[in-house]
């Protein structure tokens, strides 16, 4: 586990977009949203919006935040902190490492 879990290659995620990775692949309680910010950085959050059931990997990624595709609650990509209703709970973040163009996450480890 110390090397993390390989989820995808970085080229599979366009800048400003997200990809959903099934929980069975990631070894996590929820599916994982891999989200790539405008600057190319990749972040990992639990995929299910903490408000209802929308998938954050379908959200709008911009300026360090992902906006939920249903009701537009915003979550910080770095730490999952929620910054707008209707969601009131933070999204669970996972530490990410990119090595040789491959994305690894460390489930449950704070970034």
């Amino acid at each position, binding site marked *: 586990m110390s090397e993390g879990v390989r989820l995808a290659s970085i080229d599979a995620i366009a800048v400003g977009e997200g990809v959903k990775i099934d929980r069975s692949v990631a070894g996590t309680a929820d599916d994982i949203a891999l989200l790539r910010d405008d600057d190319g950085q990749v972040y990992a959050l639990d995929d299910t919006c903490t408000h209802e059931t929308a998938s954050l990997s*379908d959200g709008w990624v911009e300026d360090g935040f992902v906006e939920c595709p249903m009701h*537009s609650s915003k979550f910080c990509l770095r730490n999952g902190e929620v910054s707008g209703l*209707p969601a009131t709970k933070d999204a669970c973040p996972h530490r990410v490492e990119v090595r040789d163009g491959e994305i690894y996450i460390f489930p449950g480890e704070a970034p």
Partner: protein
Amino acid sequence: MTLRSVVVVGGGLAGVSTASELRKRGYDGRITVLERGGVPYDRPPLSKSYLDGSKNEKDIALQPEPWYDDHDIDLRLHTEVESLRASEGCVVLGDGIALPCDRVVLATGGSAARPSIPGADDSRVHVLRTTEDADRLRAALDGGKRLLVVGAGLIGAEAAATALALGCDVSLVDPVARPLEGVVGRGLAEWLHSLHTSHGSTVIEGGIAEFGDSVAGLEAVLTDGHIIGPFDAVLLGVGMRPETRLATTSGLLVEGGVVVDEAQRTSNPAILAVGDPTRRTVDGLLRPRAEHWEAAQLDGARAASQITGTVPPVEGAPWFWSDRYGRHVEVVGKPTDGDTAVVRGEFGSRSFSVLGLRGGVVVGAASVDDPTTIRAARRLIDRRTPVEASSLEDPNTDLRKMLRGLGGDNGSEKS
């Protein structure tokens, strides 16, 4: 002058957002939120997940209960306000106690409209604005009853879809053939309304003259004389009545809503007003009441910015959502202000949008299960980015890239 105490009258979305934004913006004085009901909750689920029982009152709380203490907000429930004494700087509560304050924010909401139709006071005729309303309606629908929904706007359409999913026999009556036409345009309004019939609800075009009782249940007499029914329950979804009593008795300017300036100040600058019962003056023009979820939240942020002297939120295109029969509808800006309508995706398919353009810029968009287009459209509207109708129409055009200025006029390079 340092402000030490703000009283917010009303614990709906606008009131709680005001309190929340005051703290976010560094205000460290006293905040008291006076709510005549229970713990503040979010209203959109009342016609959807709360009405069908999949969410309970705790699930729809606007904030978890400890949040108020954590943010040093004095939330007083089941508390009525008798009057405002602006000149003395206090709010008088129902029990006669005067609460001193430097600023008052009226977030008084409103009640569901009950038109004066004969028979509309029957206990089987419901409205839907509070959890109590939703509880009563759900109890009346238990076991798959015959429901008549009056008004096929947002709440009526949502409640009809929820009732149908609960196994009810649903009829929907509205005086116009295409409700929401003025908001989303003719084609999409027609398609949205047709979802009722395609899912098994009965749609009737007409107005209600009166409700009458028969041995089999409630009947409705239409304005053309036709009688429909019988029904076990009726839901009136015909709009809201703004709660303006405190504003009126305080001598504030009220014209079909509490009149406020761009910064949410009423005609008395020590009293602000936010949310559904307000009409905002922008660029010298008095706007209609917004009556949408995000608008209420932004009002709260603006009031807090005025009180704290911090930067107000960005004035962007208004946005709202609605759900019916499992389809998620979103509208941003004013699609009907366009001179050209552009369809992105196949109209009527699993996911599509209709965008309105005027003079080569997007002025509004309405979508069905197409959140990315709405979020892109919102930015295109706010930035007034010039766009070609043909590239918006082309599903291969990546709108996110267009916004970033990479490939704005050509999506054909994509496979």
